[in-house]
């Protein structure tokens, strides 16, 4: 978002772009954020004093599909970047849009999952599992939502012809964020869904 002062006029000391450096620092910092949430989940995973427990609710085939969707959105994201880096605006637009749609698909999957769990008696305050699960996956979902907003904004701006090869960095930065959200899900999918006590 924030554009660096004078990047147009001055080279940076390291030769690296300010915004890209900022993005990587942000992702490093986000590791601690999700680390804290995942740690809370792991700490409490088998300490709920009453049900329902993870094993009663998880629908592995369903979640595998939505994990797959998010993974594939990473592929389309990187294809959007590859397109614009070669000056292919049209290709970038298609792939950006695909990524946003896949992101929305993942989010609807999560909304469906949350509603299902709710129907089966799990809420934020039911037990420790409900608390930690909803907060962890909810914060991930919030990140995906922000990602989708960024992607759609980029898409809209690109329709006005304002994203070109020379400022492909905008797409690269959105991509870095998007891929990060994806790798967080890779971790959550394994630690929360597949590995159960």
């Amino acid at each position: 978002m924030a554009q660096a002062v004078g990047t147009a006029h001055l080279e940076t000391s390291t030769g690296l772009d300010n915004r890209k450096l900022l993005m990587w620092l942000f992702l490093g910092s986000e590791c601690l954020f999700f680390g804290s949430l995942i740690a809370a989940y792991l700490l409490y995973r088998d300490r709920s004093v009453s049900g329902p427990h993870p094993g009663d609710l998880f629908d592995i085939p369903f979640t595998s599909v939505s994990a797959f969707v998010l993974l594939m959105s990473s592929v389309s994201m990187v294809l959007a970047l590859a397109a614009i880096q070669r000056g292919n605006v049209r290709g970038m637009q298609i792939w950006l849009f695909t990524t946003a749609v896949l992101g929305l698909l993942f989010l609807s999957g999560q909304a469906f999952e949350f509603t299902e769990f709710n129907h089966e008696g799990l809420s934020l305050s039911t037990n420790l599992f409900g608390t930690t699960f909803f907060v962890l996956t909810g914060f991930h979902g919030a990140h995906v939502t922000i990602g989708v907003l960024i992607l759609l904004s980029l898409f809209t701006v690109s329709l006005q012809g304002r994203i070109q090869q020379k400022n492909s960095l905008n797409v690269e930065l959105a991509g870095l964020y998007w891929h990060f959200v994806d790798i967080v899900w890779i971790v959550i999918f394994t630690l929360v869904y597949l590995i159960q006590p």
Partner: protein
Amino acid sequence: MATEWPQTRKTGLADALRGAREMADQHYGIWSWIATVDHKRIGLMYGVTAFIFFLTGGIEALLLRTQLVVPNAGVLNADQYNRILTMHGTTMVFLVIMPLSAAFFNLMTPLMIGARDVAFPRLNAFSYWVFLAGGIFLNVSFFTKNIFSGELGAPDCGWTCYSTLSSKAFSPGHGVDFWALGVQILGIASLASGFNFIVTILNMRAPGMTLFRMPLFVWMTLVTSFLIIFAMPVIAVALFELIFDRLFNANFFNPDKGGNPLLWQHMFWLFGHPEVYILILPAMGIVSEILPTFSRKPLFGYPFVVFSGIAIGFMSWGVWVHHMYTTGLGTVANSAFGISTILIGVPTGVKVLNWMATMWGGSLNLKAPMMFAVGFVAMFTIGGLSGVTHSVVPSDYQQQDTYYVVAHFHYVLFGGAIFALFAGFYYWLPKFTGKLLNDRLGQIHFWLMLIGFNLTFFPMHVSGLLGMPRRISTYSEGQGWDFWNLLSTIGAFTIATSILVFIINFIYSLRRGEAAGYDPWDGRTLEWTIPSPPPHYNFEKIPVVHARDPFWHEKYTEDEEGRPIPVVAGAANGHENEGQEDHGGHGIHMPSPSYFPLIAALGFPIMATGLIYDYALVAVGAAVLFVGIYGWALEPATEGEEA
């Protein structure tokens, strides 16, 4: 800067905004401050705001000390005492020391590395506005109850807000909600400035300013910023968990549902111990600049001071359990963390020894900045040593939660951080006000503060060893604590007097102070090569750096025995830029002022208020935030640059 006013017809809001915007573009009037993205102005705003909070926190401290002056005093009741106590700690940590350090990051970092601004000027303005919003939000909590009938609405759980005291059941009312959301907002501000300064320091250095030619203060800013960006997310999650527990009945810290109150303590101190170094490392940086200047010697063992700073940064992640020795984590954990705590004293000791070696053999100019810097070394050493006595796990069981701990961390945070920050004021404010602070008043301020400080906090070692628990709102006679508490209270008012002297000095100097000139202290670093106050573009020409302490080396060369010889008079004054004044900075592209950081920042307190009172406001706040962010992203960043 005699530029003609642009012609505007003010017919609507948009035009009015544009008019204000143009005023801001001309660096003139109130709007130019509100829309500013200039690191120096943001730094000054940080400084003034944090100083006002310092006075608030100080008044809170005086109230606490007045209540404790004699046994069974009736100045405050226990409820008021707990609330004021909580706000005193929270204010001093989050609204005073951190933002005062941020003020110096802002003011000094770009000047010291030879840059025209920080890497993200608008993000920088955003940090300030979010900090201001969070600070006001936190203090508004006082008024959520009828303050005129003596009821305070502020949080009452101590600045550590341990679970389960912080739960809805035991802290009803909105105080803790305000605390958690307020600290959360402040965390956003710190994170933003943390990212900003890392990128600035890594990327915006002048030609030739290698990492190991950077001034020590810049190094400490870098380490601190790394600690901020890695520690803040942890407390953010802890605060979210607390907020979810309180507002949405989640169970993170609810023992009845199997939750573990100790999780809060772990998360809090995982953040909290790096936080201690976030508070003290900038102070160490300031002192490492002042001691060499006023000793006329380079910092002794520069690389070792740098590396010990980095070592402290890393080690600060491995000692958090020493806040939790008595929570029953077991002997293995306690001994491991006991040893790591002992070891973290070593790099700190290395720094102290290097500072003393810097002074040794120097030509010490005992002006107010130097006195405060030396005061820092002297007082911080005591705090560090009592810290070593804390690391001894079994004996710490006796000191845990007594006034001995209070004495220890005030020696570190007041005797350390606050002394160094005042040293920084006396040293660097003239650069920005153009006026030197009066040295005689400065000396009076120093001695009053030093005496008052020791009078307040040294007796706390004694009352602590005599078993006085911290955070008690009153105590009975016959415990042997009376005399020591009386001393502490007298000391606290002495400190307050010294602060008054500083305020008088500041106002007096602004009006009548001696002009500072380029280089009032025979300085060593780049900030002294430019006028006081600096032009908004800082450097007419970006300097080229050939050595550590670049300005010193322009003024002096060394003979074979290492004795410095002044360079020919003309070059020594740093006036090489003077002839270039008339350029007026034309042709230098500076970032445009922007209102969007302020608008975006406003979104957070609105959302937080909404979470407590009415969810509809959350939507309003989110909308404000989005307007701010979109406007920000789409406006051109630099004068004359297309988006």
